[in-house]
C-alpha cells in the first residue's frame, strides 16, 4: 500500500456519526429485519444447548446456558416490541408536538382492559347478549382489538378535550390526574376488572379468521402477531410524521404562537396528535396483555406513564427510533436486574427505585437521549464537513481566478 495514500482515519466521533447516518437512513429496515429473525436466533440458542447436552458436551452446554441468561428471551422481546410501539406513539406528543403527557397509562390500561374484559366476560352466563357471545366465538381477537381501537380513540379524544385548555407543565399535571381516574375506577369496580389482583381468566385468545391461537401457549406465534401489528402501526406513525401534518406538529412544538398566526388551529392540531397518540397507545396496551393473558392493574398506574417517559427520553425524544433503543435498554436492564443481578445483591429487587433514580440522572445528564446525543454529533460532523468543503471550493475558485488573471496579463 502506498504510504502517502490517505488511510481510513475515523475518529470515534466520526465513527458514531457514520453509524448514526446509516441508522437515520436505514435504521427502521435494519431493526425490522433483525427483529423478524430474532425468535429463530433464540430458538437456535435453546436448541444448541439441548444438542450439546445430547452429545455429552455438558460443560459447554452449561457455559452456553449461562450466556443465555444474558440474552433477551423471546417473551422479553415481545415486551420490548410493545413498549417500542407505545414509545413511538408517545413520541408523537413529546418529541414532535412538544406536549408532555404523564397520563398515557390511561390509554395503555384502557386498551388492555377493553380487550381483557371482553375476553373475560363475553361468554354464556354473563350479562353479554347471545348474539355477542356467538359473534365473539367466531372472531374473538379481531372483535376485541377493533373495539379496543375505538374505545381508546374515544378515551383519548375525551381526555384531550378536557385537558386541551392547558399547556406545558400544567398539561402534564392535568393529564396525570385525569389518568388516575381510570386507576381508581379499576380498583373500585373490582367485580369487573379484578381490582388490585388484576384481571385473569381470559379466554379465546385466538384470531378466528385464520384460526391462530396466540397468547401464553406459544411465545413465537405471539411474537410474530405483536411484531406485525407493531410494524403496521409504527409505519403508519412514520408516515404521519413525514406528512404535511407532521410538519405542522413540529411547527407547533417550535413556536405555538407563530403556528397560530400562520393560520393553524393549534388547539385542534394538538387534540388530533393527542388522539392519535392515545389510540395507538391503547393498541400497545392491548398487545401487552395478550402474551400474559392477564391484565395487571399496574398497567394503568402512573408508573407506566413514567416508564414510557423514561424509555422515550433515554432513547432520544426528538428521534423516531429513540423509543426502540430506550425500550430495549430499559427492559433488558430491568430483566438483568431482577433475574441475574439480584442473585448477588438484594438491592436490585427494588427496581422502581432504580427506574426513578436513573430517570432523574437521564434528565440531568443526557437530556437529548442516546440517539439524540449521537444525532447532535452527526450534525456537528456534517457541519464541519460542509465547512471544509466550502473552504476547499473557495480556495479552488480563488486559484482559478488567479490563473485567469495571470492568463489575461
Amino acid at each position, binding site marked *: 500500500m502506498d504510504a502517502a495514500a490517505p488511510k481510513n482515519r475515523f475518529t470515534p466521533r466520526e465513527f458514531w456519526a457514520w453509524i448514526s447516518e446509516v441508522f437515520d437512513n436505514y435504521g427502521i429496515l435494519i431493526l425490522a429485519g433483525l427483529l423478524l429473525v430474532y425468535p429463530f436466533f433464540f430458538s437456535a440458542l435453546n436448541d444448541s444447548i439441548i444438542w450439546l447436552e445430547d452429545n455429552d458436551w455438558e460443560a459447554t452446554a452449561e457455559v452456553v446456558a449461562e450466556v443465555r441468561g444474558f440474552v433477551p428471551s423471546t417473551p422479553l422481546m415481545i415486551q420490548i416490541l410493545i413498549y417500542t410501539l407505545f414509545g413511538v406513539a408517545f413520541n408523537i406528543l413529546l418529541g414532535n408536538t412538544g406536549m408532555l403527557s404523564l397520563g398515557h397509562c390511561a390509554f395503555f390500561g384502557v386498551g388492555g382492559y377493553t380487550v381483557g374484559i371482553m375476553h373475560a366476560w363475553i361468554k354464556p352466563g354473563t350479562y353479554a347478549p347471545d348474539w355477542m357471545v356467538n359473534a365473539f366465538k367466531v372472531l374473538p381477537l379481531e372483535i376485541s382489538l377493533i373495539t379496543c381501537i375505538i374505545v381508546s380513540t374515544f378515551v383519548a379524544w375525551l381526555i384531550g378535550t378536557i385537558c386541551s385548555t392547558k399547556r406545558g407543565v400544567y398539561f402534564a399535571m392535568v393529564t396525570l390526574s385525569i389518568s388516575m381516574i381510570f386507576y381508581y375506577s379499576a380498583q373500585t369496580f373490582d367485580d369487573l376488572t379484578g381490582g388490585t389482583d388484576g384481571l385473569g381468566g381470559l379466554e379465546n385468545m385466538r384470531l378466528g379468521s385464520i384460526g391462530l391461537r396466540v397468547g401464553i401457549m406459544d411465545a413465537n406465534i405471539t411474537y410474530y402477531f405483536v411484531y406485525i401489528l407493531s410494524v403496521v402501526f409504527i409505519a403508519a406513525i412514520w408516515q404521519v410524521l413525514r406528512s404535511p401534518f407532521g410538519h405542522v406538529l413540529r411547527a407547533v412544538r417550535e413556536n405555538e404562537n407563530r403556528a397560530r398566526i400562520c393560520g393553524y388551529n393549534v388547539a385542534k392540531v394538538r387534540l388530533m396528535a393527542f388522539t392519535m397518540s392515545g389510540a395507538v397507545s391503547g393498541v400497545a396496551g392491548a398487545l401487552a396483555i395478550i402474551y400474559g393473558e392477564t391484565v395487571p392493574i399496574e398497567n394503568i398506574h402512573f408508573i407506566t406513564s413514567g416508564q414510557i417517559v423514561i424509555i422515550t427520553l433515554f432513547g432520544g425524544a426528538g428521534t423516531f427510533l429513540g423509543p426502540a433503543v430506550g425500550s430495549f435498554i430499559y427492559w433488558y436492564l430491568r430483566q438483568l436486574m431482577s433475574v441475574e443481578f439480584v442473585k448477588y445483591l438484594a*438491592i436490585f429487587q427494588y427496581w422502581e427505585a432504580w427506574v426513578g433514580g436513573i430517570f432523574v440522572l437521564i*434528565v440531568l445528564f443526557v437530556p437529548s437521549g442516546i440517539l439524540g446525543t449521537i444525532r447532535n454529533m452527526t450534525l456537528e460532523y456534517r457541519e464541519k464537513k460542509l465547512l471544509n468543503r466550502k473552504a476547499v471550493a473557495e480556495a479552488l475558485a480563488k486559484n482559478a481566478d488567479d490563473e485567469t488573471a495571470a492568463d489575461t496579463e
Partner: protein
Amino acid sequence: MAAGGVEFSEFVQHLFLGLVQGSFWVLLALGLSIIFGLMGIINFGHGAFYMLGAYVGFTVSDLIFSPFLGPNAGFIVALASVPIVMFALGMVFERYVISRIYNTENERFSGVLIMFGMSIFLPDFVRLLWGRPGKPFNIPPMFQFSLFKTGTLDITAYRSFTIITAAILVALLWVLIYKTNLGMMIRAGTNNNTMVKVLGINVSRIWRLTFGLGIALAGFSGVMIAPLFAVDATMGELILVQTFIVVVVGGMGSFIGPVIGGLILGQLWALTPLVGRTQYVVQNWTGTVIGPDFWEKASDILLFIVMAVILLLRPRGLFGQEGAFD
C-alpha cells in the same frame, strides 16, 4: 343532603371527617402552589416527600424518642423535627439536583420530570430502608380521648388537633405570603416569573428556601396524618393526585383557591358515602340498585369528575387568575 336514612349526628360526623381530610389537602396544595408560583415547577414528588416525612417521623418517634421519653414526647419531637429535617433535605435537593437544570433548554419540563422521577424513586427507596410492609403509627396517648361523643358522632381529640394545627399553619402561610418580602417575591413570581429574575435579588437563595419550605410542609403533613392511617410507601400517591385536583379546582396562583378548593372537596369526599344511605334509590343500567358499598367507594372517583367538569367549564379554576396558567 336529605337525611332520610341518615342520622343528623352521622351527617355531622362526616362533615367533621371531611374537614380533617380537607385540611390536609389545603396544606399540601399550598405547598405545591408556593413552589409552582416561584419556580414554575409542579412538584410531582410532593406526595413522595409527604410519605418520606411520615417515615422520618415514624423513626424519630418510635425508634429514638419513645423508648426513652414515652410516646407523647416521641410524637411531639417527631412533629417538631420532621419539618426541620425535610426543610434541610429540600434545600439540599434543590442545591444539588434541581439547580442543575436552571437556564437549560426546557427547564420546566426537566423540573417536572425530575420530580416525577422522585415520585417513582422514593416509595421504593423507602421500602429498601424501612422494609416492604407499612409501619403502624399510634395516636399518642395524650390525644386518645374524644372532645364530644354522642351516638355515631365522635369528635376525637387528635382529629381536632390536626384541624387546628392546619388552620394555624394556613394563617402563618398567609402572613408569610402577604406580609413578608419573601412572600412578595412569591406573589410576583406567580404573576410574572421573569420579573423576579429582573429584580436582581439573590434568586437562587430564595428559590432554595421556597423549595425547602414546600417540602417541609409536605413532610409535616405526612407526619401529622400518620397516626390516622398506617404509614405506607404508597400513601403519597392518592393524595398527590387529590392535591392536584384541589389545585385545579381551586385555581392556581391564588392563595384562597387551594384553601376553599380543599375544604369544598373535603366535604364532597366525606359526604358521598352517605348518599347510599338516603331514601333515594339509584339504579344502574341493568336495574340493579346501587348500594351503599358503591357510594363508599365512589368518593375518590367523584373528585375526578368534579375536576373534569371544572376543566371544561372554568379552566382557570374557581379562584384562579385568567390565562395565567394554561
